[in-house]
C-alpha cells in the first residue's frame, strides 16, 4: 500500500516549549487513520504540519510522495489533493452553495460541473434542502455536514478531520460518523481523523496513533491498541484517567 505521509523526527516549538516531537509516523492510502490523544497533546499541531498550514521546525516531512520544500507552487499542488474539516468549521459569508462551490471555483472548474458536484455533495450529506441557505445561520451539526460536503466536492485524495464532531450533539455526531465511513469506503478517500474520543476511534479507524505531550507513544491497528495496550499511559488514557 502506498504511503501518503511519511514523517520522521518532526518537531515544533512555541517559544521555549516543544509541543511536538513525532519520531515516526506513516499514513497509508485508503485507511482511516486516527490521531488520538488528550487535549493539548499536539494533535492539531501535527495535523497542521501534515496539511502544510504550519511549517515544522525540524525533521523530515514527505507528503504524497514529495519531500516538502514549502514553496508556494508545491503547497498549492499538494493542497489541491487534500481537504480539511475542523471542529467548528469556518463558513464564508454567503450561501451554502457559495461555500460548497468554493474549492471548485478556485480550481476554475466549468460552471455546469460546479453546479452538478455541489448538488451531489450536498445530497450525499443529506443537506440538499439547505443549498440556498445562508451558511452562517446553520446549526453546529448542519455546519459540519456542509463543511464535509464542501471538502468532498473537490474529490480529495486525503481528508483531514480535526475533531469534526466535538462541538455537536451525540446523535448528529453518530450520523456524521456514518458519512465519514461511507466516504472512506465509497470514494477510497484516505482519512486522517483527530479525536480525543477513543470510542469514536474504535468505531471508525483501522489504524490509530496515540499522542501524549507531543510524543507518539503508541501506534498500530486500532483493535490491538484497545485490546492490548503496550504503554502504561495508553492504559490510563483508555480508562479515562487523563
Amino acid at each position, binding site marked *: 500500500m502506498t504511503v501518503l505521509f511519511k514523517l520522521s523526527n518532526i518537531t515544533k516549538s512555541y517559544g521555549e516549549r516543544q509541543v511536538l516531537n513525532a519520531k515516526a509516523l506513516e499514513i497509508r492510502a485508503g485507511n482511516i487513520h486516527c490521531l488520538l490523544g488528550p487535549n493539548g497533546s499536539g494533535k492539531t499541531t501535527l495535523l497542521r504540519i501534515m*496539511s502544510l*498550514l504550519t511549517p515544522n521546525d525540524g525533521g523530515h516531512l514527505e507528503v504524497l510522495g514529495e519531500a516538502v520544500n514549502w514553496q*508556494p507552487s508545491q*503547497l*498549492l499542488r499538494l*493542497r*489541491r489533493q*487534500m*481537504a*480539511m474539516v*475542523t471542529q467548528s*468549521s*469556518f463558513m*464564508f*459569508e*454567503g*450561501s451554502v452553495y457559495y461555500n460548497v462551490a*468554493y*474549492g471548485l471555483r*478556485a*480550481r476554475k472548474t466549468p460552471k455546469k460541473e460546479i453546479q452538478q458536484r455541489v448538488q451531489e455533495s450536498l445530497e450525499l450529506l443529506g443537506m440538499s434542502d439547505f443549498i440556498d441557505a*445562508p451558511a*452562517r445561520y446553520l446549526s453546529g451539526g448542519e455546519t459540519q455536514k456542509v463543511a464535509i460536503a*464542501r*471538502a468532498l466536492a*473537490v474529490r480529495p485524495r486525503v481528508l*483531514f478531520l480535526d475533531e469534526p464532531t466535538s462541538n455537536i450533539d451525540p446523535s448528529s455526531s453518530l450520523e456524521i460518523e456514518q458519512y465519514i465511513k461511507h466516504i472512506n469506503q465509497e470514494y477510497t478517500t484516505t482519512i486522517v481523523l483527530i479525536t480525543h474520543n477513543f470510542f469514536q476511534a474504535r468505531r471508525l479507524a483501522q489504524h490509530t496513533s496515540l499522542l501524549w505531550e507531543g510524543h507518539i507513544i503508541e501506534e498500530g491497528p486500532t483493535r490491538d491498541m484497545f485490546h492490548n495496550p503496550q504503554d502504561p499511559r495508553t492504559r490510563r488514557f483508555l480508562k479515562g484517567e487523563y
Partner: protein
Amino acid sequence: MDVIGQGVKEGILLILSLDPELIQVTLLSLQVSLSALLVSGLLGIPAGTFLALKDFAGRKLILNIIYTLMGLPPVLAGLIVFLVLSNRGPLGEWQLLFTPSAMVIAQVLLGFPLVAGLSARAVMSQRQEAYDTAVMLGATRTIAILSIIREARMGIIAALTTALGRLIAEVGAVMMVGGNIQGKTRVLTTSIVLETRMGHDSRALGIGIILLILAFIIMLLILKLEKRSFKDDSTIQII
C-alpha cells in the same frame, strides 16, 4: 430663528431656481470629493490590507502614523499641499495650485489614511480560519487574500463611507489649495464661508441645506450598496 427660517426658505428656492452657478459649484464639490475618494480607495484598501496581513519591520510604526493621520486637520493637509505646490515648493513647476487637481490631492491626503487605517482594522478583525479554509480548499495565496477582503467588506465599505463624509464636508483643505475662485475652484463648503462673510446668512444656510441633502443622498446610495452585498446578513435582534 428668523435667519434659519429664511435660510430654509431660500435654500428651497435656490434648489428650485436651478441657479447655473450653484449647479456648477455642486458638481465641482462632487467631482473633487468623489475623485479623492476613488484615489484614496484605490491606494488605501490595498495598503490597509497589506499592513493588516504582512508582518515586517516598521509595520507597527507605519500603522500608528496612519492612525494618527486619520485625525489630520484639513487645514493642515491644505497647508502641506500648498507648500509643496506653491511656486517655491518642490512641485511648483506643475502649476497645480488653485486648480481642482490641487484640491483632489489635498483631499487624498485626508482620505487615504482614513481608508487605509479603517481597512486595515477591518481585515485584521478577520480570523486565521478564513485564510486556512481558503487555502485548504485549493485557493492560491492571492485568491485567499481576496477572500479575506471579501469577508471584511462591511468594514471596508464603512471606511469609504466615513472618508466620503469627511471629504465632502471639509473646508480647510480645499480653501487653502483651491482658493475659492469663482467658476473655477469654488465648492459648496467654501461658498458657505464666502456667503457668510458677505453677510448673506440665509443664502449660506441655503447652500448648507444643499450640502446636507447631497450627503444624505450619497449615504443612501452607499447603504443600498451595502445591503446588496449583505442580503443574507441580518441585524442583531434585541428583544
